[in-house]
């Protein structure tokens, strides 16, 4: 099937594969930092930046739009932190505020731009649900390169990430700057989100960061394998979802990628080797059998003791 795809489509497939892997890895970091929904807030917050980038560039130029998205997502992250730290509003409410207000601003600008100067032909709408097929080869190369950089940074610093996520105090004692690591983490998160929104869309980008990481938890307790599995699930979902959405005319890519990811989640939930429901049930069943035998043995011992 892959051989029958056009040259451009093969590149698109490769890019969503690498994007999925990068998202899987960064997503598992976010899961351990308990910031899964942060990715949702940041991907929504990227929308106004995309539109402003489009207006500044005058045409649909992906590098400038990605830069705009990164700026507005970072601004969103800073605002969430500011609201959380300086008032009594909790983090989830702060995320909801930033998410919805930024998205509202984005829709406002989008409508404004669509009405003027040929914006509706620019395919800006495809940023909402993702349209991998609308990418041209320079977009795809940029996306692939950025996702590969994220992959590389995450893989090279494996030991540092592990320390930073599980024992920040010890990491600081070893001279690993928490601020620096936090900065790199946020940069990776924002990078994955902004290169992903072209293919997956601002609304569902979070799913690609959240679902593979949660699915991987059902298979293993080891951090290394969680990250690796999460990358595999993410990459698989990215590639398979792109293939599926290519089967229809004008079908959005994002929702199909999410559905494939959710399917792996459901399989993991039931069949996962370490916390899967099936394994838990079998464990409980054998435990109950062992228990039902043990009292019998105890009674025999008691009877023997009474006999003597």
């Amino acid at each position, binding site marked *: 099937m892959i051989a029958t795809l056009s040259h451009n489509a093969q590149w698109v497939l490769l890019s969503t594969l690498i994007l999925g892997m990068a998202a899987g890895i960064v997503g598992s970091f976010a899961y351990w930092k308990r910031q899964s929904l942060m990715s949702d807030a940041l991907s929504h917050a990227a929308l106004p930046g995309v539109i402003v980038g489009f207006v500044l560039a005058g045409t649909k130029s992906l590098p400038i739009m990605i830069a705009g998205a990164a700026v507005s997502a970072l601004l969103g992250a800073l605002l969430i932190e500011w609201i959380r730290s300086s008032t009594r509003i909790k983090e989830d409410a702060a995320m909801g*505020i930033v998410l919805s207000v930024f998205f509202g601003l984005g829709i406002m600008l989008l409508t404004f731009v669509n009405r003027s100067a040929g914006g509706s032909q620019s395919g800006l709408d495809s940023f909402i649900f993702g349209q991998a097929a609308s990418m041209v080869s320079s977009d795809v190369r940029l996306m692939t390169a950025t996702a590969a950089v994220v992959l590389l940074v995450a893989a090279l610093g494996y030991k540092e990430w592990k320390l930073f996520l599980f024992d920040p105090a010890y990491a600081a004692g070893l001279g690993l700057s928490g601020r620096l690591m936090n900065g790199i983490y946020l940069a990776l998160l924002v990078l994955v989100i902004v290169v992903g929104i072209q293919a997956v869309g601002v609304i569902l980008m979070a799913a690609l960061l959240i*679902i593979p990481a949660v699915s991987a938890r059902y298979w293993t307790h080891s951090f290394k394998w969680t990250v690796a599995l999460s990358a595999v699930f993410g990459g698989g979902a990215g590639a398979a979802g792109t293939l599926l959405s290519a089967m229809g005319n004008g079908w959005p890519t994002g929702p199909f990628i999410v559905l494939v990811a959710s399917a792996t989640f459901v399989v993991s939930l039931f069949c996962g080797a370490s916390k899967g429901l099936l394994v838990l049930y079998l464990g409980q069943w054998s435990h109950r059998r062992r228990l039902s035998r043990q009292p019998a043995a105890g009674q025999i011992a008691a009877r023997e003791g009474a006999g003597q």
Partner: protein
Amino acid sequence: MSYSGWILLTATLVGISCGLIGVLLILRRMAMMADAISHTVLLGIVVAYMATRQLSGVHMLIGAVCAGLLTSVLVQWFQSRGVRQEASIGVVFTTLFAIGVVLIATQVGNAHLDVKHTLMGEITFIPWETTAVPLIGEIPEAVLMLAVVLAIALIAILAFYKEWKITSFDPALAVSLGIPAVLMHYVFMSLVSVTTVASFDAVGAIMVVAMLITPASAAYLWTDRLSVMLALGAAFGALSAWIGYGIATWLDTSISGSMAFATGILFAASFLGSPRYGALAKLRRPKAAGRNAGSEAGLSTD
């Protein structure tokens, strides 16, 4: 009433009902649950449409309540299976929303139901889809639905005011007093779903989140009393609807987007300017006093 009069009335009703429900959402720390439900309501509407082949208010309401309850049941269930709360919210709503979008894209996409409409709302069409009501005459269907939902929300909040207060501020005490906290939780989730779907037509899925969370958060910065907070939440909701409509007609842009943006303006004003909990007030206050204020920051329950 004039065309823009109906639009303003619709937006005001959305602002008031979302502001009221939002206050309870913030206090129960379920802001992101509202985000989740506003997305999954889409699936409920699509399924209701596929089953009945018509887009009427009642079917949509029922579909939406089912979707909202399904969301909260699934989130609870995954949580009990050891998935962290924020992760389980993330998994559930993105999945259900994706199913909804895929169904629209592949099965039912047509002029009446498209994804853009459900995301951004079509408040400009509302004054034309009228229905006859005895004694009052022709009024837009959405206004009728919003009025009914607002009445339900008001009755539910006023009738069980004490129960809402106790379950929101002290769940443990509520259980020991014999208040059915789990039942209240699901009743509340239904209220959120109903409010969401009634507002959906007017402002779309994402703006509902803005209307639910932001005015209530702004109100939270002004007061320590639940009754005042409810009134302020509703007032801020209505006010941001008007400001948003003003911006939208001025710039000739999306009304729902502008309303969401206007909630942000109100919040920013409260965030910076609120005398007790604002950022500026905190900067001005000496450090020690700030710490004292922080320790009594919990909302008092009287």
